[in-house]
């Protein structure tokens, strides 16, 4: 059977991809810890891009403030697992004499839930907006969150303002603290490698959740709204609820990724959540392939690793060619981003790895073969 062969081929591909994902940090570890950190961040960006893809790719709602949910997740964990609150509020210090150390298993759902709440908060007032107008309001929302974080150090010091929050607990799971190296199965895993595996697992979970949502009744409702909102309404889709659900679920991914970011860095400050970050995550989605999960992952990894590659190559190459560094890597990065986006829009407007075109629609595995209906059934 052709179907079986195709399925086996898919299994083999999946296995190969899984092996590469597992082996990658070990190989990168040989090059240096910075590369492993980059890989860990790439996994976080995959989560972010997948979350944004629900809003922008599936439901077609342009969101330029997505990084706000990342910030919400990061600050949630920062406040719940650092000495900041106990240092500033005697009442809290009295209530938690041992300090606030909310375990990660509570922090993840909490970060996700609070971010989802903010997602609804953003979604509710913008339900009637589309396109450019929606983009501007969401951009404003992202900035509002950042500015709040920047200024909520007075009169009550909630966020410690621009200095950010320090000394955030690392992830601890079952007695393993992720900030220390671990020897397991004869392997010596460094802290970034441990985080990488955690983030990769979460990213894989995100892929599963996203692909299941995509092939569901809800996923179809999102796409119907994206394609034609009026027709979607006429089909009985409650557009308001379905849009809010897109904002909330998208934000959830941002919240979880943010929690992980806080734990990984041990430090959060408002400058990590600038508009530029929102734009970069959106670029990942658009560059990779709007609404196409493999494309989005590809875009996220590409844009997360690319600056690091530049940082390591630009200066040496220029030294070699001209004897000195003419252009800074950071400057060159923005230039290349700009060029890349223009070229993509001109030549591959659907992204580098878009969803397959007509005639190749997915058929869900296990879907029963549809027998021809003689004479048709009565509706």
């Amino acid at each position, binding site marked *: 059977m052709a179907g079986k062969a195709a399925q086996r081929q898919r299994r083999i591909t999946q296995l190969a991809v899984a092996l590469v994902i597992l082996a990658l940090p070990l190989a990168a570890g040989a090059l240096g810890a910075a590369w492993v950190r980059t890989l860990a961040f790439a996994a976080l960006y995959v989560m972010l891009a997948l979350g944004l893809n629900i809003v922008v790719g599936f439901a077609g709602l342009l969101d330029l403030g997505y990084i706000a949910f990342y910030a919400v997740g990061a600050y949630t964990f920062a406040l719940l697992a650092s000495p900041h609150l106990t240092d500033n509020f005697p009442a809290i210090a009295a209530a938690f004499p041992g300090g606030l150390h909310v375990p990660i298993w509570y922090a993840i759902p909490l970060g996700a839930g609070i971010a989802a709440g903010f997602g609804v908060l953003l979604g509710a007032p913008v339900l009637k907006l589309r396109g450019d107008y929606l983009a501007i309001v969401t951009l404003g929302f992202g900035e509002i969150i950042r500015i709040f974080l920047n200024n909520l150090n007075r009169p009550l010091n909630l966020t410690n303002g621009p200095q950010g929050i320090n000394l955030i607990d690392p992830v601890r799971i079952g007695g393993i603290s992720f900030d220390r190296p671990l020897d397991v199965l004869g392997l010596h895993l460094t802290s970034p490698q441990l985080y990488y595996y955690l983030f990769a697992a979460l990213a894989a979970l995100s892929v599963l959740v996203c692909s299941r949502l995509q092939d569901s009744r809800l996923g179809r409702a999102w796409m119907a709204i994206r394609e034609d909102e009026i027709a979607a309404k006429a*089909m009985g889709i409650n557009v308001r609820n379905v849009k809010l659900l897109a904002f909330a679920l998208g934000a959830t991914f941002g919240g979880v990724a943010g929690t992980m970011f806080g734990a990984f860095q041990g430090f959060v400050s408002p400058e990590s959540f600038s508009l530029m970050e929102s734009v970069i995550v959106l670029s990942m989605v658009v560059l990779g392939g709007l609404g196409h999960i493999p494309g989005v992952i590809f875009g996220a990894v590409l844009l997360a690793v690319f600056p690091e590659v530049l940082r390591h190559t630009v200066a040496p190459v220029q030294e070699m060619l001209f004897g000195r560094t003419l252009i800074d890597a950071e400057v060159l990065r923005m230039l290349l981003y700009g060029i890349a986006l223009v070229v993509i829009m001109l030549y591959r407007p659907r992204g580098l790895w878009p969803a397959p075109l007509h005639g190749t629609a997915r058929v869900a595995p296990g879907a029963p073969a549809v027998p021809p209906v003689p004479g048709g059934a009565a509706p």
Partner: protein
Amino acid sequence: MSTAGEPGLRPGAADALLQVAGISRRFGGLQALSDVGVTIARGQIYGLIGPNGAGKTTFFNVITGLVRPDAGSFVLDGKPYEPTAVHRVAAAGIARTFQNIRLFSEMTALENVMVGRHVRTRSGALAAVLRTRAARAEEAAIRVRAQELLDYVGIGSLGHLRARTLSYGDQRRLEIARALATEPKLLALDEPAAGMNGTEKLELRRLLERVRTDGVTILLIEHDVKLVMGLCDRVTVLDEGRVIKEGEPAQVQRDPAVIEAYLGRAHAPA
């Protein structure tokens, strides 16, 4: 359709599926509809005709909830309904197609019809993520039903194609299949034959007759007088937002007011 003869219905209207009365709607200085009423009996194909700008589409948009009326009463299948939200009208049992086809163009034909099942199914986000037994069963049922409906309208082999790649006539059929997927009591079609050639019109007519036979009442807006006269059981003629005649096609066709409305305005700008 067992709800016929429910208590609360006016006598003599026992077989009425849709009763709307006193609908008015003003757009700025234009009185698009004034005191329009229609009673559609169960199992009928009901035609709504009139010259350009007569208010047909506005009327259509009012009963399907796209446009809010200034006044009017609405009863569907013995139950009053408020056409205040489009999705609730669909849930109540009115499905519609659009004058300028509105398909989900980047989705496949099958997926389009599957979206039509949304209002009659219930799996939520959590069930989808966990892929529960109920959600899988529902998903499979949606798929089977959608394919049946594609077969029913005669485009069963085109399910895997993106909607926008279908031919014009097939897109019209797909829109009807998608509307039927919502299990409507009333199927409301806004100029379904627009832009069709003779053969396609004939096929459309057969399809609509079959839909009626299978128990769905049809409301039809149409420009093609021949199609309306041949297909409809009853016809209402609108002109300048008012009902000028209501009756059987043959009567209506001979009515002087109707003839005047059409011929008298045929050369005036629409």
